[in-house]
């Protein structure tokens, strides 16, 4: 049992790594700073460590999907991130791809169930 959990943990890590980008992009139609994003996603049931999110935001900015701006007026300076034009396009395409994956995966899972049933 613990062995299965160990495997699960590793696989979930990979699964999350791939999907977390979509979650992050989805929240950046309005400007957000790193920690507000952590809290927003947490509320929606998606846990992301700040130590993962902050470097990710930077990487997405470097790739041109996000734009950033320092707000120095508030009590402490914060770096706000926002989807760029490219970012919005990429997000749209990603969502489409995601839906396709969900459909085909569901399909695969269902079919396998039927086959197993048939073999019994």
């Amino acid at each position, binding site marked *: 049992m613990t062995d299965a959990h160990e495997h699960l943990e590793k696989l979930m890590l990979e699964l999350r790594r791939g999907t977390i980008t979509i979650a992050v992009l989805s929240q950046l139609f309005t400007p957000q700073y790193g920690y507000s994003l952590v809290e927003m996603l947490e509320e929606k049931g998606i846990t992301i460590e*700040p130590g993962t999110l902050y*470097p990710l935001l930077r990487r997405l900015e470097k790739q041109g999907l996000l734009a950033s701006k*320092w707000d120095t007026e508030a009590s*402490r300076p914060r770096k706000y991130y926002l989807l760029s034009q490219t970012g919005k396009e990429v997000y749209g395409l990603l969502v489409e791809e995601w839906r396709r994956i969900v459909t085909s995966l569901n399909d695969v899972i269902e079919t396998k169930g039927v086959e197993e049933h048939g073999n019994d």
Partner: protein
Amino acid sequence: MEMIDRYIYAVTKKLPQNQRQDIADEIRGLIEDMLDERIGNGKTQEKNLEDILLEIGSPRELADKYRDKKKYLIGPELYDSYMIVLKIVLITLGASIGIKFIVETVLDPLSILDYFIDMIISLVTGFPMALGWTTFGFALGEMFGDIREQDILKQTWHPSDLPELPNKKSQIKRCEPIGGIIFYAIALVFFAFSSDFFGVWVFQDGFTGVVPFLNEQTYGMYRLVIILLLGISILKECIKLVIGKWTVKLAVISTILNAISLTIILFLINQADFWNPTFMQDLVASDIVAFGSDAYDVVSKVWDQVTLWLVIILVIGLIWETIDAFLKTRKN
């Protein structure tokens, strides 16, 4: 809170210079936000901060994520020092080879073509070698420099493992190791290419020759040992430049290297055939001192004692350097 500064310092020193400030500001904001959120949860601020840093992860992991796990031959932490050392080594090498050519040509203008060809050969073979060895040394430092005791002894990272912020008193001024490297590099080139000029220069209506200090017959054998000795000294200065402050680790490394140098020096100087055996006769032959004069007695005594005094000076120098290193570490 000093712990925050230490954490940020530990993360950003592994990142490229141009990103450091921005990332530092961002992480500071994050830590402060997380601290604010936990105010009034019954724990002390220190404990909360510890939890937060553990949550964010070890500085190395975080820095790796920022670097996108890119692997470097020579990473940002060492890059500045690498460039400085490389410049010093190449400039010294180029200048020394140039100066050697000029000196040789002035002393013997007729053979200028030979000297010129020698110079070109030295440049062509010397530059790639210097570049290669410097790069190799720093690449080794990059590979093994990051292995810390905690990797071997325990798996988990704790905020108390954070390095101290660089302290002004124990900091090594950059000019100190740089000066050292230049000095040793010049000496290295000098001994490697032209020990024939290491002696008393005789001028009688112009330059007539050199009475060498060292035994020319055996020098070829000892040259490698001298180069090794100077190489160790350059290595020591490079490590000082990279670490940048007096730490116990640096003091220990420097003690070990000093002990090795000391052993080599003692070995070298105690070889009977190391010094020029006919030094006094050569001096008389070049009319510098007359046999039996007062000057002859003085020079002869000095020459006989030179080994002893050289050893004493070097031993005191190296021991002093070792003690000094530990004293400076204590100030930290």
